[in-house]
């Protein structure tokens, strides 16, 4: 009974913080427009920068796609706590009797919504300009699992970097090395979707394993990171 009440309270707090973050961002339009523009520009530039031919496009294009996703994500992740810290409202949120895990869950879900929206817009553009058949059901678990991995660890480190003056520089330096396995897995899984190889490794399983590790570490450590 107590567990049910605790769970319901956790869900209500998470939903309230998520609602607040989405509403603020949709009104301010500070981040998601920039993320979307960045991802689209990156895809267009990569298309011109690489000498793409029929025989090498399947090997190169997935890398370009995930680089665009990762860099666009970092733009959004950097603002996860920065906006709250600039106005001091994070302290005010921490003054409330709110489960710190609910704050993490809401920030993570908010990041997933905005990164997901950018990916939703970018994927058809990617398929069109690289002329690749990626708009199939198979791309959904790859993008979903890859995005969860990036956002899970990115949200945790956004809280750490948010307390520093050099947060814009620090966040990518902290996050990029850690998400390498997820990005490699996502790129190889996307390549497998375009031109399947016999005996390829179970890349989705690798990404899922890292997602579980990142989510577990973040859930356990977030309260210590966000509080003094």
């Amino acid at each position, binding site marked *: 009974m107590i567990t049910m009440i605790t769970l319901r309270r956790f869900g209500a*707090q998470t939903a*309230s913080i998520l*609602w607040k973050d989405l509403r603020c961002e949709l*009104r301010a339009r500070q981040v998601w427009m920039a993320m979307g523009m960045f991802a689209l520009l990156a895809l267009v530039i990569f298309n011109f920068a690489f000498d793409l031919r029929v025989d090498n496009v399947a090997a190169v294009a997935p890398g370009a796609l995930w680089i665009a996703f990762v860099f666009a994500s970092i733009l959004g992740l950097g603002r996860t706590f920065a906006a709250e810290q600039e106005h001091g*409202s994070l302290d005010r949120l921490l003054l409330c009797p709110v489960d710190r895990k609910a704050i993490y869950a809401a920030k993570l879900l908010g990041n997933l919504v905005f990164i997901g929206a950018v990916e939703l817009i970018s994927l058809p553009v990617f398929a069109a300009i690289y002329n690749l058949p990626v708009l199939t059901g198979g791309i959904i678990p790859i993008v979903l699992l890859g995005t969860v991995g990036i956002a899970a660890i990115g949200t945790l480190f956004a809280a750490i970097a948010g307390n520093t003056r050099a947060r814009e520089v620090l966040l990518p330096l902290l996050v990029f090395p850690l998400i390498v396995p997820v990005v490699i897995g996502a790129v190889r899984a996307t390549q497998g979707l375009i031109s399947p190889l016999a005996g390829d490794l179970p890349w989705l399983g690798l990404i899922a394993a890292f997602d579980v590790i990142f989510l577990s570490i973040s859930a356990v450590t977030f309260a210590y990171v966000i509080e*003094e």
Partner: protein
Amino acid sequence: MSIQTMPASQARPAAEQSLPAAIQVEALSKTFALRPVLRGLTFAVPARARVALLGPNGAGKTTLLRILATLAKPSAGEVLVAGFDVRHDADQVRRRVGYVGHQPHLYEDLSARENLEFFGRMYGISDHRARADALLERFGLRAKANERVRALSRGQVQRLALARGILHEPALLLLDEPDTGLDEDALALLAEVVRARAAAGVTTLLTTHQIARGLALAETALVLAGGRLVHNGPAAALDVDDVRALYTARRGAR
């Protein structure tokens, strides 16, 4: 403008009202990177008291308030708020503390009503919509309820911050230089809120650089200097010169 308040006895259980001290601080020390900010503070604030916490810049006033509000942890010593330890029962303390700072710390892209409703949900207030409406009415913000905070004047924002501070009917109200940048009307409102909350049984601890205003609003004055408590006594027994002398005496002793 008249500020009506719900009696604290309606909002809190009877056991809590019988607590002898709203704040109990024992040998509290706080250091930041080996620099001592608070040095062995010991004092108690009885329930329903109005206390002014005075001190020069860097005396440790804000740090003490942040510890009482659970935003910072003591380096040594014990701090109880309404009988709950700020380290081990932080959530219980948070439910009982209202905090208003010199910065409003509101969400600028949400409306006045949305801000109050959001914090109402964070405190688990079941009728948060009705409570938000009642406070907007009391603080003269009904006409501005649906305007975004960034469109409100400084005085209106500070009124909203005050409303948010008492939204959950806290037993202890911490006011950290709430008079900074306020015009005369807003200052009168602040004084009225402090007195009304005290009449409703709420303990108030406020810091201010306006010594005369602090002494006028409070029954008890705590004076900090150099991280030490240099005075704890009736506010009526002090005047502005006495307080200034306490600031400089401490500086001379260091």
